[in-house]
């Protein structure tokens, strides 16, 4: 067992373990914190695949911005373990069925994959920012720009929906 296998196993253990803890823990704030750990483990995996840019962007965007907003909302709503609504029996059953089917599908798919071909640690330079930029802005420039327009429209849509009917008057002192 070489060092990258050991690191891979540790990171995977961390990712799966934290993901499980995220689901199990009763307190929503703890769930958010476990989810942040999952993102760190996944960033570790990206580094193993020599995709440094992806790793650091994953940290900046997901762990640094989106999860802060999640935490923000959860803290403001003051969700606690006792205010968690108890789901009824039928809902639990449906959840078990759909979750079990998804798990079954995933296991079947991964079983049929050629694992040797998939895992190629620390090889190739596709993940380095220079090569990534070249591919994104030369080969895939149209889809890239279209997706950025999509983001922009989503942002404007959120602002329009979140806006109150009458704009609030500016404070004359500010």
């Amino acid at each position, binding site marked *: 067992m070489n060092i*990258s296998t050991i690191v891979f196993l540790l990171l995977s253990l961390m990712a799966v373990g934290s993901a499980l803890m995220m689901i199990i823990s009763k307190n929503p704030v703890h769930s958010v914190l476990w989810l942040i750990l999952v993102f760190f483990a996944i960033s570790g995996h990206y580094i193993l695949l020599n995709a440094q840019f992806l790793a650091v962007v994953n940290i900046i965007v997901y762990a640094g*911005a989106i999860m802060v907003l999640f935490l923000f909302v959860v803290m403001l709503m003051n969700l606690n373990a006792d205010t968690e609504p108890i789901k009824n029996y039928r809902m639990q059953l449906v959840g078990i069925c759909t979750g079990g089917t998804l798990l079954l599908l995933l296991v079947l798919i991964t079983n049929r994959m050629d694992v040797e071909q998939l895992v190629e640690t620390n090889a190739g330079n596709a993940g380095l920012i220079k090569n990534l930029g070249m591919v994104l802005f030369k080969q895939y420039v149209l889809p890239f720009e279209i997706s950025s327009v999509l983001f922009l429209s989503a942002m404007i849509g959120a602002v329009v929906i979140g806006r109150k009917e009458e704009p609030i008057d500016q404070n004359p002192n500010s």
Partner: protein
Amino acid sequence: MYLSTIDISLILEKLILIVVVVSASLVVAMYTTFAERKVAAVLQDRRGPNRAGPFGLLQPLADGLKLFFKEEIIPNLSSKFLFILGPALAMLTACMTSAVIPWGDHIDFFGRNVSLQIADVNIGILYVFGVVSLGVYGIMIGGWASNNKFSLMGGLRAASQIISYELAMGISLIALLMITGTLSLKEMVVQQQGGFWNIVYQPLGFLIFLICSFAECNRTPFDLPEAENELIGGYHTEYSSMKLGFYLFSEYINMFISSVVMSTLFFGGYDIPFFDESVLSPNVAAILGIAALMTKTLIFIFLFMWVRWTIPRFRYDQLMHLGWRILIPLALFNMLATGAGVLYFN
């Protein structure tokens, strides 16, 4: 990367470098607290601390000892693990940034070329940005775990402030990256050694970056998370003893590191102005380079203090107005102008 192929001395070398860099930033931060009180005293026409040791130089040690000996109180209804995790995270993220900063060129150590940078990763500045964006967790977790509404308000203010100012900071960095064409801090310094400093090309970008780093460090005029007249102590209301010390101390480490980052990005890093380092022997050049970087850094730290004791705190709506309505449009304009300039001149 296999362990067997890595030189064992490389690991040793990096380990020593990490220990030296982290302890140096701790010592600098320690004396920054002393300098802050002295600067405040000068600005307010007082003497400042002068009892412990000659000129009061042992004051930081006395402060540290006092904090260690204070009674440690953990609120009954707080979440204990997170309550302890908060200050630890604040300290960790404050220290982590120093890994990618080039402190000097390299030294010749018995024929061995030792680079004075812990990790020259090709995403250098993005790493700094990532760690800065994680810095908010220490404050938020501490504020929430205290189970106190003032702490929670402080934590939420910190989060919204840091997220708002991160955007303008990121956009001002993009403009800089367009000019340098690299993310590695080391390469940026090498480029600035050859030509002009980046401040010449990016004066507006530097101004935006400076204001945003004030906000990211929670320094006055942006210290709303700990506004004592409305929030008692903000996120650290419930903290006592060395945990409080960690929060206060991490602010000074952040200040030191952001001063170093600003000197590196915009003021040539370890470059000595109007002087060609290549005529010196590498060791002398490295030592002079470190001295140059430290001088620039100290000037910035002084600026941080000067502003703190001169300008009053913003109101919350003013803070948001400045961030979203002034800094972000300015940063966007700067980015577009830089892009047009790069296109025109190349």
